[in-house]
Each structure stands twice: as structure tokens, then as C-alpha cells.
């Protein structure tokens, strides 16, 4: 207690909060005066008394110093003094200091930004109470089953969800949700809105708190009520509390707003949610009532909360038991349930394990690139600092000559680096904040990112980067600079001649290192960019322009299946009769999902899993796909005629042409079992299920009358307005709605994250190259200036220009060459050791892609050469007389 009090007071003393220097001085002087008075009383003369008092008291300065040492913490004060001195000496070389700070800030800022993004996407917990107890359930299916997928194959059907809700004990609650785009009719405008259709217990399971009003409860399950996000409340309602009780018309259904979620919550997925609607009301209202009964339709995402005492493992075991009982009702299907933490990475964008591995791999590479950029920036700063240290050699020599210990001087120089690094870290952090604040809404990030503030991990990372930078870029120049012979340094100008110039070797390796690292970095980012471009090459097999999908929403209850069929038929008729339109029907339009089926050829002993779709004769012509073999569907075809894609044909019969006339057995939902049909046509393998992925084996069945209610139109129309007019006319007066979506927009938006990642890597590579080039430029420029005398002598003795140039940039070119050789070596080793690890993220581009290698080496060589040549030209202009006079 006493010690703590004393320590605190001393700390306060360091800040001059207790005794001031003047007070100390006054106290000691009064002591001295009293001492002199005492001597005068004893009979000494004034002068004698004063000198006797002085003799007894001792040196006022040294007593005061002992006093002051006790007042504060001497080491702390020394550090503060060093910092003040550092700031002063950095101000003296302002340009150099600013460029060092900028270079370091760039490195720290970029690294911090990338780490923050990666952290946010990969590891940040959901902003929920006890977020680590929130789990996500996903399915993995095997065996023979007939399943349609509207979303992802890992999603649940509604009956499956109900079974889990009724049975589970390891979870305190299981909630299902489905995120969809919807249209909000707001003040006479149609406004797209991100809706989540949720089970009534959704907010309860996640334990979300309301910012205003109340959230959905079990009692609201059948009521047309809505909960809105804080963001929508702010942006569309100006945070008006009167929003509670207001009505929202969403896709022709009115909902009463009952509450606003807390600010940090915008759903559990990467895609944020604006409005939450009860599933039992919203799904039928959107014309999908059959989803609530269909046991073989994957469409619901499922989250749960672990019960007290339960673990991920016990929940998974229990889920396995439930899955088995479910499979018993669906012979042939083998279901596995994966229970995982509901971190952001598990959700939305990345739904399968392989997606996740890919994302983590890509993220790790990006973070590694950032670390390397930081390394290059620091070594650049080190080179600049070294140049500064060489220039300060005389000053350092004087300090050592008058008795400063070498360690003390190193300490002083390191303090300067630390001041630089921390200023740079602050600038970098500012940079990072600005970048994230301004770009957050462009990225697929959790909703809370629109008000990004650096949190503890981010701050910790930035300071760690600064400390690492200090050690890395400060230590070598400091140790080097203090290795001086004071006598020699004071006697002559410190710059030597030729290759023995101080710091030449250290500089050589700094340049070589930078070149090697930026070569590797450029190569990797080039490869990544090529890989991503490769993956993004949208090669659907059909043109996307002017292609739309129209889906009819007919509220259930008010109209019968016959009404709906009738509506579809009328719409078909009017679409067909409009000029300039191509129209087709499919139960699954492109890039919405896929159907799963099982099929086998006559010669095969067991079935294999295939995708399927049901289409009408207009579908392929509308897409612009012509047959590889056989014919297209015709009116009147039934389930005994099927079309397969080239992939299925090759897999089953070895050849597209051989498939025609063959029989194939598949699950027919209308026949409630297997049936056999004849292949009448083969179409090319398209990319119509997932963007950028060629379809698997695909079975196309003709669409029948009973399928019409669930069908969507695929239309190619030059004018979207005309299309909207057409559907508007048709649905006017009915309670149905037609939703038109551009397939091209759908494809483009799904490739956004990958495009962003690719752009990011290229940007990083270019930044690195620029920083490295600036480093080489600075080093060569410095060497030209410090070797002016030597060059002058050469010129005076009649050396030709080529020789002068060689003297100046010869060593830099050698360093660049060494660096390039090392870079290629590192890539070779990396290719051998890491090819397996790199493979999934390179999307089929080899790690030593000769094109990428050649281009990168040429670009790097050109830019580095230019960076060395430009300052070297100044050497050619050296006037020998000027140079010699300055000697």
C-alpha cells in the first residue's frame, strides 16, 4: 500500500505535479542561508560564514539533483527526454522523416486494414449475448433421394426443422430463417429490401434485444407483423419512435411494425437484413405455401443455442440420432448434420466446407502479403535511416568521444525509430479507419461495420506492427552507426571511397531483399489475380444480356392451384404473343438453385446423384442453346422423353451421340418412384446452377401441366419496361404479383466478393512494387550524392560516361540481380513445397505459370532499372571542378 502510494507520487513527480524545480531550489537555498547565519552567530565574518556554509552544504546543483531524482522516476524522465530529443532531431531532417513516416504508415495501415477485414469475416463473433453458444446446423446428404434445392443443399426442409424443434434437448431452441430480396412499397415507390423470413422463436434463440418496441415472440407467429433493423429505422424513418405500429406493404402483404432490433444486430449472415417477417405469414404471402409442407425441399437455414451443459459435440451426437429417425421416414437417404459455431465465416457467402477452406487459404495469403508489404516498408525505412545515420556519424562520434556509452547512443537512436514508428502507426491506423469507413458498404461485411471503430485487437495489432517495425528497421542502422572509431570519424569526412563506403554491404542486402520479396509478392498476386479471373470467367454457355426470370407470387388461400395454373397459362400466352420476346419455362431458373435426383443407365448397377430441372420446349431456344445431338423438347413430350447434358451423356455412355435412344432410370415425383425414359436429345454442359462452376450431370424433364404452378419464366427481352408493363397488365385486378429479376445482375453480384479479392491482391502487389522502387531510388540517389567527390575525380581523369554510370549503379544492378535470383529461388522452393496448399486458391493456374513469371520479371526489372537509372543520371552531370572543390 505504502509502496504503491509512493510509486504513484513519484510518477506524478515525473510529470512535475508535486514539487517544482523552483520550490526545490528555494528550500535548499533557505537551508544554506540558515547555515550561514549559524556560522555568523559563531563569530565568523559575512564572507567567511558564506564560504563555510558552502563548504558544509556541498554543491547546490548536485544536492538538487539527488533531490530531483527522488521526486520522479529517473528512467522515465530519461525516456521522455530521449523522445523530446528525437522529435527535435527528426524535425531537423523533415523531408526524410516525413517520407519514413509515410512509408511505414502505408505498411502498417495496409496490414492493419487487411488483418481487420480478415478478422471480421473469419473470426469475429456475432454481436449477441454468449455468442459462442450460438450454433449453425447444416445438412450433408448421401444415398438415394429426391431433393430440390432452393438455396443450398445444406439447408433444411420445413418438416425437418419442425422435427428438430420438437426433439432436441442439447439445444435450448432451434430457429429457421430464410433471407430473400423483397419489394417494399414505400411512399409510392418500390424499394428493394432485404427480408428474413423467420420462425417465431428466432429472436428468442439468438437473444437479440430491441432498440425500440418489442421483438417477435411465439404469440406473433401467425400475425402479419414486422421487426425492422436499426439501419432501416435510421435511414428510412429518421429514428422516429412512431414507427412502432406503422404499416409496411411488402410484396402485397401489409405488416405492422412491432419493433426495432438493437443497433449491432443485422442478422447472422454476411448479407445484412432490413426486415424480419414471421415465416408462417410471409412464406404463403409470397406464393410459396408449399415450402411449409414439402419434405424434400432444401430452403431453410437453421441456428440454435446450446443448452447449459451441452457442447458442440453432444449437440452433434444428438443431431445424428434425430437425423437417423428422419431418414427412417425417407428410405435411401442418409443424412449427417454438421453443428458448428455460427461465426460469420460459417454463414451466407461460404456455405460449404471447401468454400471455407478456400476463403481461409485466400485470407491467409492476403494477410501474408500484407506482412511482406510491411516488411518491405520497414526495410525501406531502414535504408533511409541508415543514410541518415551515415550523415550523422560525426555527431555520434562526438557523443562517444565525450563519454556517452555505446548502449546509451543505441538507446537514443532506437528511441528515434520508436517515435517514427508510433507516429507512423497512428497515421496508418487513421488511414485504416478512413478506408474501412468509406468502403465498408461496398464490401460483403457484417452490418456493424458501417460504423467501424478500431477495437482492441486492431489497436493491439497496429502497436505490435509498430514495435516490430522499430526493432526491425531501427536496430541495424543504430548498431551500425555506433560502430565508429571516434578519432577517425572526427578527423575526416566520414564518406569513404568506392565499395568501402560506409554501410555499402548492408545497403546491398537491403536492396536485394526488397527486390526478392517484391518479386515473390508480385508473382503471388499475379497468380492469384489470374486464378480468380480464371474462376470468374463467366462461361455460362449462353448469353446473359437481356435475360430475365419472372416468378409469379400468388397468395395462397385466396386462390386455388387451378387459378394459379390459369394465371401462368395466360401469362405464357401474352408473353408468346408479344413481338420480340423469347419465352421459356423452367421450375428452376438459372442461378436460383438446383434439383437433385438419382439416375442410372440400363447397364449400370446402381444410381448416381444428378441434378435435374423441368423445362418446356421454349427453354433452350430462349437461352440460345442448341443441341449437341438429337432433338429439343416438343409439345406433347411426357416423362418418357428426357434430355441430358453432355456431361451426363459422357459419364453414362461415353459419348454424346451414343446417348440418343438410350434408356435412363430416375426418380419421378409424379410417379412416386423410379421410372425409365428415353434420351431424345443432348445439350452442352452449361453453367446454370452456380456461377463459375460447370454444371454436374444434368437431367432435363419436360414440364407438365401439374408443374406449372411452381414454374418460372425465362425471358429474353430487349426492354425491361415492356416486360414490366406486360406483367403489370396481367396481374392488375388480381392479388398476384410478378417479380422480374435480371439474370445478368444476379451473376454479376455473385462474383463481387471474388472480384474484390482479386482487385485487392493486385493493388497490394502494385503498392509493394512502388514502395520497393521508391526504396531503390532513394538508395541510389543517396549513393550518388555521397560519392560526388569520387565521381568528380573519375570525370576529371577522363572516365567515359558508361564507366561513370557503371560506378554509380553497378552495385545497385548487382543487388537487384541478386534479389531477383533469390526471389525466383524462393518461388521454386515454394512451388515444390507448397503446391498442394496453394492449389485450391490458384483455380487451375500452376504456381510457376511461365507467363506470369516472365511478365513479372520484366516489369520488376524495368521499374527497378528505371528507379536506379534516374538518380544515376545526375552523376553524369557532375562538374569535376565543383566536385573537387568541395573535397
Amino acid at each position: 500500500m505504502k509502496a504503491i502510494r509512493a510509486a504513484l507520487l513519484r510518477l506524478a513527480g515525473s510529470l512535475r505535479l508535486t514539487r517544482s524545480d523552483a520550490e526545490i531550489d528555494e528550500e535548499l537555498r533557505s537551508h544554506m542561508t540558515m547555515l550561514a547565519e549559524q556560522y555568523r552567530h559563531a563569530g565568523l565574518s559575512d564572507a567567511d560564514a558564506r564560504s563555510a556554509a558552502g563548504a558544509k552544504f556541498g554543491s547546490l546543483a548536485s544536492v538538487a539533483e539527488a533531490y530531483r531524482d527522488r521526486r520522479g522516476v529517473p528512467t522515465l524522465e530519461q525516456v521522455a527526454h530521449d523522445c523530446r530529443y528525437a522529435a527535435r532531431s527528426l524535425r531537423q531532417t523533415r523531408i526524410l522523416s516525413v517520407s519514413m513516416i509515410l512509408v511505414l504508415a502505408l505498411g502498417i495501415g495496409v496490414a492493419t486494414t487487411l488483418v481487420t477485414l480478415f478478422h471480421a469475416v473469419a473470426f469475429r463473433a456475432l454481436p449477441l449475448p454468449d455468442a459462442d453458444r450460438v450454433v449453425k446446423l447444416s445438412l450433408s446428404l448421401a444415398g438415394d433421394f429426391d431433393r430440390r434445392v432452393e438455396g443450398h443443399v445444406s439447408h433444411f426442409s420445413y418438416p425437418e426443422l419442425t422435427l428438430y424443434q420438437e426433439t432436441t434437448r442439447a439445444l435450448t431452441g432451434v430457429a429457421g430463417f430464410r433471407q430473400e430480396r423483397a419489394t417494399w412499397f414505400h411512399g409510392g415507390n418500390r424499394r428493394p429490401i432485404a427480408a428474413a423470413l423467420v420462425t417465431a422463436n428466432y429472436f428468442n434463440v439468438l437473444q437479440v434485444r430491441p432498440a425500440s418496441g418489442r421483438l417477435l415472440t411465439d404469440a406473433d407467429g401467425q400475425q402479419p407483423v414486422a421487426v425492422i433493423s436499426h439501419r432501416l429505422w435510421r435511414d428510412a424513418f429518421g429514428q422516429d419512435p412512431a414507427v412502432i405500429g406503422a404499416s409496411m406493404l411488402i410484396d402485397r402483404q401489409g405488416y405492422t411494425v412491432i419493433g426495432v432490433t438493437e443497433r449491432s444486430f443485422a442478422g447472422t449472415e454476411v448479407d445484412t437484413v432490413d426486415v424480419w417477417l414471421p415465416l408462417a405469414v410471409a412464406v404463403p404471402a409470397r406464393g410459396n405455401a408449399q415450402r411449409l409442407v414439402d419434405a424434400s425441399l432444401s430452403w431453410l437455414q437453421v441456428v440454435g443455442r446450446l443448452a447449459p451443459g451441452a457442447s458442440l459435440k453432444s449437440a452433434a451426437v444428438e443431431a445424428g440420432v434425430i437425423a437417423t429417425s428422419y431418414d427412417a421416414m425417407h428410405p435411401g437417404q442418409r443424412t449427417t448434420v454438421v453443428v458448428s459455431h455460427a461465426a460469420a465465416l460459417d454463414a451466407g457467402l461460404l456455405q460449404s466446407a471447401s468454400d471455407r477452406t478456400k476463403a481461409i487459404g485466400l485470407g491467409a495469403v492476403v494477410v501474408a502479403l500484407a506482412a511482406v508489404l510491411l516488411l518491405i516498408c520497414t526495410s525501406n525505412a531502414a535504408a533511409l535511416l541508415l543514410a541518415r545515420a551515415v550523415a550523422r556519424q560525426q555527431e555520434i562520434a562526438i557523443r562517444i568521444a565525450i563519454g556517452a556509452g555505446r548502449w546509451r547512443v543505441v538507446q537514443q537512436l532506437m528511441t528515434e525509430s520508436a517515435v517514427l514508428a508510433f507516429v507512423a502507426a497512428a497515421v496508418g491506423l487513421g488511414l485504416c479507419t478512413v478506408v474501412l469507413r468509406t468502403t465498408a458498404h461496398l464490401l460483403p461485411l457484417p452490418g456493424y461495420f458501417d460504423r467501424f471503430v478500431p477495437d482492441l485487437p486492431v489497436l493491439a495489432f497496429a502497436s505490435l506492427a509498430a514495435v516490430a517495425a522499430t526493432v526491425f528497421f531501427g536496430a541495424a542502422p543504430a548498431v551500425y552507426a555506433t560502430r565508429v572509431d571516434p578519432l577517425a570519424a572526427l578527423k575526416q569526412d566520414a564518406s569513404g571511397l568506392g565499395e568501402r563506403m560506409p554501410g555499402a554491404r548492408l545497403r546491398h542486402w537491403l536492396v536485394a531483399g526488397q527486390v526478392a520479396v517484391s518479386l515473390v509478392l508480385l508473382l503471388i498476386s499475379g497468380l492469384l489475380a489470374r486464378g480468380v479471373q480464371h474462376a470468374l470467367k463467366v462461361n455460362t454457355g449462353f448469353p446473359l444480356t437481356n435475360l430475365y426470370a419472372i416468378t409469379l407470387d400468388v397468395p395462397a388461400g385466396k386462390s386455388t392451384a387451378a387459378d394459379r395454373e390459369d394465371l401462368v397459362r395466360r401469362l405464357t400466352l401474352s408473353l408468346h404473343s408479344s413481338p420480340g420476346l423469347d419465352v421459356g419455362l423452367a421450375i428452376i431458373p438459372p442461378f436460383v438453385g438446383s434439383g437433385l435426383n438419382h439416375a442410372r443407365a440400363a447397364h449400370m448397377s446402381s444410381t448416381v446423384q444428378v441434378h435435374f430441372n423441368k423445362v418446356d420446349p421454349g427453354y433452350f431456344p430462349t437461352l440460345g442453346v442448341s443441341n449437341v445431338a438429337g432433338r429439343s423438347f416438343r409439345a406433347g413430350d411426357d416423362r418418357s422423353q428426357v434430355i441430358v447434358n453432355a456431361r451426363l451423356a459422357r459419364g453414362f455412355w461415353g459419348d454424346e451421340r451414343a446417348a440418343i435412344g438410350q434408356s435412363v432410370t430416375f426418380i419421378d415425383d409424379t410417379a412416386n418412384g423410379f421410372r425409365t425414359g428415353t434420351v431424345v436429345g443432348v445439350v452442352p454442359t452449361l453453367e446454370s446452377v452456380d456461377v463459375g462452376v460447370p454444371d454436374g450431370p444434368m437431367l432435363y424433364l419436360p414440364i407438365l401441366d401439374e408443374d406449372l404452378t411452381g414454374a418460372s419464366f425465362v425471358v429474353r427481352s430487349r426492354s425491361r419496361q415492356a416486360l414490366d408493363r406486360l406483367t403489370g397488365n396481367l396481374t392488375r385486378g388480381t392479388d398476384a404479383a410478378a417479380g422480374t429479376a435480371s439474370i445478368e445482375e444476379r451473376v454479376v453480384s455473385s462474383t463481387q466478393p471474388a472480384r474484390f479479392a482479386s482487385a485487392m491482391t493486385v493493388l497490394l502487389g502494385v503498392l509493394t512494387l512502388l514502395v520497393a522502387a521508391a526504396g531503390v531510388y532513394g538508395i541510389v540517389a543517396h549513393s550518388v550524392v555521397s560519392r560526388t567527390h569520387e565521381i568528380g575525380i573519375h570525370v576529371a581523369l577522363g572516365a567515359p560516361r558508361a564507366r561513370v554510370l557503371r560506378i554509380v549503379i553497378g552495385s545497385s544492378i548487382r543487388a537487384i540481380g541478386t534479389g531477383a535470383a533469390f526471389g525466383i529461388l524462393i518461388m521454386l522452393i515454394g512451388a515444390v513445397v507448397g503446391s498442394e496448399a496453394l492449389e485450391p486458391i490458384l483455380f487451375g493456374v500452376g504456381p510457376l505459370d511461365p507467363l506470369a513469371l516472365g511478365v513479372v520479371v520484366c516489369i520488376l526489372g524495368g521499374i527497378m532499372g528505371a528507379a536506379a537509372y534516374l538518380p544515376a543520371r545526375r552523376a553524369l552531370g557532375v562538374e569535376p571542378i565543383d566536385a573537387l572543390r568541395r573535397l
Partner: protein
Amino acid sequence: MTQPAHDGKQDKTEVWQGTLALMVLTTLEALGAQHGFGIARRIEQTSGDRLSVNPGTLYPTLLKLEQEGSITSKWGVSENGRRARFYQLTRAGRKQLADETRQWETTSDIVARFLAAARVR
């Protein structure tokens, strides 16, 4: 804190820091509020001028005691009308003095016994 003895009288012993704190506390208990010069003078007189108090040791000791809360200080006017900083015992200081006196007595008692035993042998 090594300070050269400037007074030239080499026979005087310099007070060592550990015991100085105890002497300061005893002096303040005896005299009440007192300034640095008065404390030094009193200690030297009490020792029969066998001790010399070095200001370079005294003032840091006073400051240390103050930081630890055993004494407080404030500016005042001396008997000769001079401005000086006066030090005074706090309650915690009185307790510390009692503790340290007891401890010191025990220590010196033990050491005395050892010395007596050595003399007997």
C-alpha cells in the same frame, strides 16, 4: 548516493540512509513541525556532533518519507523570519516510528548480546 564530505572534518561519521529515516522521525516527534536545516542541526547536536548530516541525503529521505505518507510538509516562516518548508509527522508516521523503534531495539539488543558473548570468549 555517495557525497564527498565537504566540511573537511574527517572524524565525523556520515549518517547512512536507512537509519537517517528513523532519526528524522524521532526528531520530528520531539520537535513537532521543523524545517530541513533544523532537523539536520538537531540530529548533529543529539549525536554530540559525532554525525554529519549531508543535505544530499537528507532531502531525498524527507521526500521519500513524505511520498510514503509518514510526514507532510508545507511552507512556513522560521523563527528568524525566513521562508522554509516545514515537515510534520502524520498519524501513519507515528505508527511507523513506534514500529521501527521496536524493531531497532530488538536488532541492537541481539547485536549487543553477540558482541558481549564474543568479549567473554
